């Protein structure tokens, strides 16, 4: 389902920079990671995106060497790391709360790794200076870290991790402690720094916007597995599962049953009428039909090749960038929510009859989850 990492690929292609193969991790009887595979190319920025408890932080800690997996392999730059202790892996980590050393100054924090490598005093001084310059914290070198603001602490944590030139940089929800505005600035800034240095990075987050903004590729994780590994656009426009669809971005979803299938197109019976979609399902399969908000138009004629939902508007919830429409089906009385990018000019009065339409090719179909589909 995702690109499978084989430590020694038979093909002529060079092996990926980071290879995680068949990784399994249990805590007692709970399996946190289940036979997980992931490959990352050199210089790539990959996000691990998922709800809390999906195993993303566990995967990060396994790559860091702060935990041992039950089975599986971790290879970075052709170096087998599975049994290598954390301090010999040359993996850099930016921790969630930064974990700066309060008994040391800013410069001493950044110098910590270089001191362990027994670099010369001159080299340490030069490289610490460069790293602080890079994160625009040079004037703070002699300050105590506890006197810094959250954003400044984060810059120091980044400087401390990259100054030793790690083989890979792991970031564990580094923006979660920052307020929204600062977070957005820091995301762009960090992205630029890492891209300029060409550091291969893995970034753990539960925030889809953060993942979409920063990543070359996103691995959407659920219950200890990667459900979809792809570019942000790929994840958004053609999610591989209902979970990925629901976790990333907004969507309108209708439960139904496939009634016919021919020529790569299925027809699905829903509470709001029949929908067509490009997909392959056996007739009788329970499915969920979905569409992204920006594909929906309001009140247009049901032209050829468009799906239509007719419903009475019960409520309009304005959410800034998006507007949520609460609708009640005319025939069944079922409730649905549609999310649209913007209201038509003049607005929509509550209680009005609406026709929502979208193109058949914008329609997605997923197998219904085991529990009741709606």
């Amino acid at each position: 389902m995702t690109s499978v990492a084989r430590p020694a690929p038979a093909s002529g292609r060079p092996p990926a920079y980071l290879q995680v193969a068949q990784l399994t991790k249990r805590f007692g009887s709970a399996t946190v990671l289940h036979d997980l595979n992931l490959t990352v190319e050199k210089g790539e920025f990959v996000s691990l995106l998922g709800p809390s408890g999906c195993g993303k932080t566990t995967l990060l800690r396994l790559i860091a060497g702060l935990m041992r997996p039950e089975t599986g392999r971790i290879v970075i730059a052709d170096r087998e790391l599975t049994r290598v202790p954390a301090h010999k892996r040359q993996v850099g980590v930016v921790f969630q709360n930064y974990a700066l050393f309060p008994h040391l100054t800013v410069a001493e924090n950044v110098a910590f790794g270089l001191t362990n490598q027994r670099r010369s005093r001159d080299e340490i001084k030069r490289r610490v200076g460069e790293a602080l310059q890079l994160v625009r914290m040079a004037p703070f070198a002699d300050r105590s870290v506890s006197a810094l603001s959250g954003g400044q602490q984060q810059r120091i944590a980044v400087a401390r991790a990259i100054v030793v030139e790690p083989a890979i940089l792991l970031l564990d929800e580094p923006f979660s402690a920052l307020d929204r505005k600062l977070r957005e600035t820091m995301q762009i800034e960090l992205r630029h720094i890492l891209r300029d240095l060409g550091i291969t990075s893995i970034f753990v987050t539960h925030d889809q916007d953060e993942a979409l903004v920063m990543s070359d590729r996103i691995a959407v994780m659920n219950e200890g597995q990667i459900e979809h590994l792809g570019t942000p656009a790929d994840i958004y426009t053609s999610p591989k599962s209902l979970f990925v669809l629901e976790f990333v971005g907004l969507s309108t979803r209708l439960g139904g049953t496939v009634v016919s299938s021919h020529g790569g197109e299925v027809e699905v019976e829903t509470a709001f009428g029949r929908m067509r979609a490009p997909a392959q399902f056996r007739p009788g399969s329970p499915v969920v039909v979905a569409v992204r908000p920006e594909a929906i138009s309001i009140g247009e004629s049901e032209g050829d090749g468009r799906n239509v939902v007719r419903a009475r508007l019960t409520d309009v919830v304005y959410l800034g960038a998006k507007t949520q429409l609460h609708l009640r089906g005319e025939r069944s009385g079922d409730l649905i929510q549609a999310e649209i990018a913007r209201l038509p000019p003049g607005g929509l009065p509550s209680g009005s009859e609406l026709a929502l339409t979208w193109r058949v090719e914008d329609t997605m179909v997923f197998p219904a989850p085991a529990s009741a589909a709606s």
Partner: protein
Amino acid sequence: MATAARILSAIILALVLIFLIMPIAIVIPISFSPSTIFSFPPTGFSLRWYENIRNADGILRALWLSTQIAGLSTAISLLLGTLCAIAIVRGFIPGGRLVATFMTSPLMIPGLVLGIAMLQAAREIGLRDGYAALLLAHVVVTMPFIMRTVLASLALFDFAMVDAARMLGCSYPAALWRVLVPNILPGFVSGALFAFIVSFDNYPVSIFLVDVRTKTLPIQLLNQLEMSPDPTLAAVATIMVVLTILALLVCDRLVGLKRMAAV
């Protein structure tokens, strides 16, 4: 009314302070008294009792022994207690809370009971060496003081710092040494100070374990009092008061008494 209450509470506070300090304050002038009996106020000034410390049989030897036992038992408790506290706080061992309670329980057992138990245990395992038995018993006595302060310090310590140090090239023990130790130093210092003092003036446990050759200072002092009660004891007591004040000053310089009191 309010003023009257304030004056009254100030008087009570003063009385309590006098009650606490007085015995210690009285011993100091007595130690400088030329008289051979304990008399207050002293009738003159002399250092004869300080000179006599050297002549008094066994006091210096007992002082040296007590210092060794207190120092060693504190050091052993610090090392083992800290490792144990880390295991408890990090959940490395099941039932960690229970272990923590167990490790601090000697605090709640009367010293006499502990002393008899230690004597029995030393006999049972065939530990004939008085010094070793004394040291072991004092590790038990000092451990709770170390455990309490170190556990309290660790509860406020962010172990992600240890992980951060490991990712920057420190082995686990090196990470503990370079990051954990400096950050919970106030806890170490106050725990160690209490532990040292508790061991140094322990009487009820030691009395069961000393023999002719190994007598700790409190026991030697009591012997002295029975055999030749003179102000030599006051001189020793005065020296100990001064040393304690010096130790507190050093700790204040090192980590600050406020930080120590906070743990």
